[in-house]
């Protein structure tokens, strides 16, 4: 029996839109959903939205609003939270535990006021800079929003989309989100939860959530992209290539492209169980779909050869703590094929009975594509130098244990192109001050405007008022050179 079409709305300037002249179907993991197609009027509405409303809000107002939204999400009986969890389970095939954890992290992110201030300060230099002119050397500087931000989400991890939206909001930009069929629910739930607090709030009204087939925007939809001042592009190579087309000297594009992550474990400095559980966490969180998800582990001093076995047990534990979605036929088959390849190459392998994870112990090789779905390659090494040939800028995060390894390795890891060094077990927590793919994204979402001090301002290097005409008349220049 065919499932009836379930409808999901768009959000236009904070307003829920259920009915538009044309509708389209979105194929998701477990069926299809019906949603309105963006029309000319909605695009005009979005593009004519007054940017001032949120641009002039003080930062504390925005963060407070987000906090209030977060308080709702924190409540287990919040209807929107329950609906969100239900939709993720029913339509995306998530386990209930994972969907709940995503909702919990959403609440945590929204309610972490202190962390948000710290992030603003770390990335922009001061959390006042968004609200007032801050003295910086011989200027006063203020960070202004770019204006209209367009977010093309990948949907592989819900919190990435949340981060993109919140970054744009705290920097006072209008937010237009194009959701992914991999996760049409998170941006929508977030936007609608703003309405639950105050539908007329400038933050709520500055958010729009739309969707269309990736890379196939029609003229109407393209107007939206062309109206953006900054684009945050998430996804694989094709998404990056798509976004690059829209990059101009007046339209910033921030690329969050495909990355992978690794672990380095020195068994001489850490217990097998602790290390394996940490790695298992970094593999299993977000079902290995995130850029920060560990795909390979380099293991030093595994003299007993037991790390992989411990890791297998830890992955079993995580299969219970964070149950993966039911593996598709393709996913199971890819795991089996990889396991057989490993055997032919005389590599050891461990596989869970229901295909929820796979461990292969092998020489490091860049030619084997990891099929993900909690597939881990374990590479025993005899020296840390053995890792060097396998480092490149495609690696986002290196997760280490023991932590002391970071002091030895971080310079060489950074030189090789790695963006982020963390302790194993912590890859999913982006601490305030961290760089995301080697940038501070908030900096790219604002325009720094400087108001420089006048001619009679004497500071470190000058003792006279600046009168350039006089200096030219008197041919005085070199005497002012320090």
């Amino acid at each position, binding site marked *: 029996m065919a499932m009836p079409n379930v409808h999901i709305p768009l959000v236009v300037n904070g307003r829920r839109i259920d009915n538009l002249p044309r509708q389209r179907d979105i194929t998701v993991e477990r069926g299809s959903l019906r949603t309105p197609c963006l029309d000319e009027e909605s695009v005009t509405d979005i593009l004519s939205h007054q940017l001032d409303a949120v641009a002039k809000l003080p930062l504390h107002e925005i963060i407070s609003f987000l906090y209030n939204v977060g308080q709702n999400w924190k409540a287990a009986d919040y209807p929107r939270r329950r609906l969100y969890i239900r939709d993720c389970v029913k339509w995306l095939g998530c386990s209930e535990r994972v969907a709940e954890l995503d909702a919990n992290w959403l609440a945590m992110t929204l309610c972490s006021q202190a962390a948000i201030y710290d992030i603003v300060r770390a990335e922009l230099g001061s959390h006042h800079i968004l609200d007032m002119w801050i003295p910086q050397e011989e200027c006063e500087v203020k960070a202004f929003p770019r204006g209209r931000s367009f977010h093309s989400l990948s949907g592989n991890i819900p919190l990435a989309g949340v981060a993109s939206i919140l970054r744009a909001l705290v920097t006072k930009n209008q937010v237009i989100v194009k959701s992914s069929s991999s996760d049409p629910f998170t941006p929508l739930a977030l936007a609608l939860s703003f309405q639950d607090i105050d539908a007329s709030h400038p933050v709520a009204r500055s958010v729009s959530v739309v969707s269309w087939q*990736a890379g196939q925007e029609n003229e109407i939809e393209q107007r939206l992209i062309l109206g953006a001042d900054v684009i945050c592009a998430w996804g694989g190579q094709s998404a990056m290539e798509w976004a690059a087309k829209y990059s101009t000297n007046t339209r910033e594009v921030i690329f969050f492209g495909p990355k992978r992550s690794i672990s380095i474990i020195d068994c001489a400095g850490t217990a097998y169980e602790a290390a394996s559980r940490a790695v298992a966490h970094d593999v299993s969180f977000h079902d290995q779909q995130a850029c920060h998800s560990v795909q390979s582990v380099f293991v030093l001093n595994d003299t007993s050869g037991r790390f992989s076995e411990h890791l297998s047990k830890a992955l079993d534990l995580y299969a219970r703590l964070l149950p993966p979605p039911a593996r598709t036929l393709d996913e199971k088959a890819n795991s*089996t094929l990889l396991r057989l390849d490993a*055997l032919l190459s005389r590599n050891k392998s461990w596989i869970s009975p229901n295909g929820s994870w796979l461990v292969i112990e092998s020489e490091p090789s860049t030619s084997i594509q990891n099929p993900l779905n909690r597939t881990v390659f374990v590479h025993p090494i005899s020296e840390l130098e053995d890792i060097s040939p396998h480092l490149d800028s495609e690696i986002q995060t290196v997760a280490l244990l023991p932590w002391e390894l970071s002091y030895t390795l971080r310079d060489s890891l950074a030189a090789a192109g790695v963006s982020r060094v963390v302790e194993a077990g912590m890859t999913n927590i982006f601490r305030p001050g961290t760089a995301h793919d080697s940038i501070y994204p908030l900096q790219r979402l604002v325009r720094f405007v400087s108001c420089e001090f006048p001619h009679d301002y004497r500071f470190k290097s000058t003792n006279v008022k600046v009168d350039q005409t006089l200096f030219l008349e008197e041919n005085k220049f070199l005497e002012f050179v320090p």
Partner: protein
Amino acid sequence: MLWYDLPLKEQNAIASDLARRSFALHLEACLPYRRYVDEVRATVGFDSIMEMPLITTSAFKSVELLSVGRESIEKWCLSSGTSGNPSKVARDRTTLSYLLSSTKVGAGLIGSWPEDDAVIVNLGSGGIESTIWFQYVVSLIELLYPSYAVEDNGSIEWCLVESLVSDHIGSGKHVVMIGPPYRVVDWLTYIAGTNRRMQCGSRCTIVTAGGWKKFSGSQIDRGSLTSLAMTQLCLHSEAQVRDVFTQAELNTVMFECVGLEKHVPPWVFVAARDPLTLTPCRDGELGVMSYIDASAESYPCLLLTEDLGYVRRGRCSCGRDGVRLHIERRLNSRPLAGCAVRMERHGV
């Protein structure tokens, strides 16, 4: 009596016997395979053919699998996949001879004409010197019938093809056009664009061979191709559009009968398998396709492929008893490193 006219019971018995012999041969002769069997802790003397360890097709990209000395290898055949790293399959004289003779016999499922009464139009560049598997197999067909390979430097002059087909049909010959589906679609689209229809009637057979995906990755619909062919070529029957299945790692071509089912010869033991346990699926149940092809003697052709499909056994609509396979699609490929999986899955 040809193999596809044998009773099913006999075909099954032959398949089982040859599968066991093939396993024993390669276990003895191919060191990497023997080591592999040891790794899976299998023992010699299997009770069940289903327990015989299988090799993935991707293994041929990285491991040299030989069951004869290198000096016996007469041809290295390459797959034509788009992954950038082709499979290399070593064939000796015997293996190639089996390929040729099995292709000659199997082609009878498509049709059989006196040599003077049929021509082959090969929508490829031809050449028995080709190492690309598909091109090589099609070029062997020229031993059966006069053939024209119409591709030149990657492109085809469709107006010349139109003349070729038209002339031969006009002179009473049967034209068999062979090519990958996208090429056939290009041809039919060209005809449609001329606003002429070719009056081929019963004198033309289209044989598609190769993947059903376009270069862009979108799937070509077989029904649409057939419909287009019927219209543009004025064919008498949909049975004049057939498909064949082969791959570089397999030494046998599977031909479609008039019932549009691909019959599997008894020297190939075929099974659709559960993707995790590798136990055999029921008739008609989708699984990962596997083959034990005893006609390959120079390399172990005990394959677990990247295709999803199913197997049916019994009476076919063409009237023959036999084992038939259906390939549903290729496995969604193992994604690139990074977080680019799910968004691609649904075309987002």
